[in-house]
């Protein structure tokens, strides 16, 4: 779906990507993680063609992103972190924007709007921040585009809305869609994503499916520490000790995304050796 080869991109003085290569396949929900300023949003913009790579190629569905051809643009939708809604009613928004997306489903949109409790006769710009975001999430899912990019989609959502988000997202998964969610709030995408990609220093630090993570690592919360040789990463928490261990049982464990992310950031070589072996 998305093919990024040898991507080089710099802002005026800051180098962001230096030969980054990664592919994102249809039928998956990717969690894109990384520290602030590592280039998650820049990667999204390169995928959409909003930024043009200095070197390398980014293509969506076989079409070069930088050309911004309508055929390529109709295959994707991006929900940016600093999103915008026009000063129109939800109905008008749908009536004038949905025709650009050939697979837009009005029934799906009604379903999501109902789930998110969005007033359809209200003007978008007069809604609360959370409602605006939910309206855009509903629209983005109803477009049924092959690629959906969501940058911090749960920012500004309250606890109820976050669970609504998870529910709606789970119902929107299909084999022809590729969804990439960039977030700092890893708890919000737990049980939702099936692959994790971590960016650091302009390159991909980690990229694996959660199934593979669950097979190779196990996650433990307790009071007593495990034997040192079994531990990849451990951290004291308010409730005891959170540990990432080598999975020696052979059974797939439930992944604690937050602990995994910390383990990757603190012991990248240990994790990569384990996953590349």
């Amino acid at each position, binding site marked *: 779906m998305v093919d990024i080869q040898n991507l080089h991109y710099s802002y005026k003085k800051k180098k962001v990507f230096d030969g980054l290569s990664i592919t994102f396949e249809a039928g998956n929900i990717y969690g894109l993680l990384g520290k602030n300023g590592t280039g998650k949003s820049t990667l999204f*913009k390169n995928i*959409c*063609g*909003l*930024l*043009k790579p200095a070197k390398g190629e980014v293509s969506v569905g076989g079409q070069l992103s930088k050309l*911004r*051809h*309508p*055929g390529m*643009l*109709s295959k*994707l*939708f*991006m929900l*940016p972190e*600093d*999103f*915008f809604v*026009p*000063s*129109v009613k939800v109905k*008008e928004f749908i*009536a*004038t*924007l949905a*025709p*650009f*997306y050939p697979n837009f489903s009005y029934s799906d949109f009604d379903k999501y709007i109902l789930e998110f409790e969005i007033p359809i006769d209200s003007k978008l710009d007069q809604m609360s921040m959370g409602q605006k975001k939910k309206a855009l999430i509903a629209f983005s899912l109803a477009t049924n585009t092959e690629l959906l990019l969501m940058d911090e989609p749960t920012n500004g959502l309250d606890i109820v809305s976050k669970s609504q988000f998870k529910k709606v997202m789970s119902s929107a998964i299909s084999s022809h869609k590729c969804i990439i969610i960039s977030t700092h709030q890893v708890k919000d995408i737990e049980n939702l994503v099936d692959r994790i990609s971590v960016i650091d220093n302009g390159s991909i630090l980690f990229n694996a499916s959660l199934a593979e993570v669950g097979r190779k690592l196990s996650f433990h919360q307790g009071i007593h520490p495990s034997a040192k040789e079994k531990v990849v990463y451990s951290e004291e928490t308010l409730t005891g000790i959170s540990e990432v261990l080598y999975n020696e049982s052979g059974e797939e464990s439930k992944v604690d995304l937050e602990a995994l992310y910390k383990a990757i950031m603190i012991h990248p070589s240990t994790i990569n050796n384990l996953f590349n072996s």
Partner: protein
Amino acid sequence: MSEHLNFSRLSLLLKNHIVEHKQRYLYYAAGMFFIGLIIMMLCVSFNHFPGYANIGHTDQVSGTNMQPTERVSVTTWEAVQTILYLSGLSIFAVIFSSVSFVNFNNKGEAIFYLIKPASQLEKWLTEIIVHVFLFFAAYTLIFYLLDIPVTLLIRSTEYSYYLEEMKTTDAVLRQTRFFHPSSFFHFSTLSDDAWIAYPVCISIYLTGTAFFMYGAVLFNRFSFFKTLILGFVTAMLYVFYSLLVFENTMSLFSPADWRFTSIFRGVRNGENFSFEVKMADHWMWTLIFSLMFIVPMVLFACSYFKLKEKEV
């Protein structure tokens, strides 16, 4: 071809553009209406249009006896209408074109705009259609919404004045342009010297629109003021180049007895030995032609290529 230009997608984009920006455009139209209303009222209040005062009397300047159907060269309401129409067109067009590509003022809005599944050519054409053609139609409509009642008001007042004070007969007045369509549609009523106002104002309208549209896509924030400064600097460079570099360089390569004429020339004003700065005729026409056709086309093309390369 359909990747770059598809008419059904273009019409969709145009509809989407108008729906999303209708509030802004309605405010702008209301602003034009009220500013136009105030200016027209001021013109009516402060000006006496003496053109028809000469009907049936000897003209003080030329000594000719004015016939009802004769045109008079003094300022008439038609001339004022033309000046208002053309100057308003130029000024409002420039201000309106500064809100073209308004989506680039805000990062989120710019992303929303650029990821819409339409080609850059279609997005650019939408801006041209709205800011050049639809603006022209809307401006003209608003102008005549104001102009027709104001003209009727002026004509009715003058009509009563001639009937009652000047004892002019209704039959004579009927032969004049009192209620003739040309009273409202005034495009052929300027004097011979003043018709140059048309190409000048249209060139300002087209070049101004194209220049500010280019500025709007070039700059992300405060594009109007940045474009204004860019325009001033460009104009200064043009004058500097013409006066100091171009003229002197050309004089070096010209025969000794042949003086190359610069853009501006000093003209001795009678016995006063005073000078006024006038643009040489051939330079003026070159400039008007360039500003009407070549410069707008180049600037519109620049805004298209800048849009294609625009990064957010």
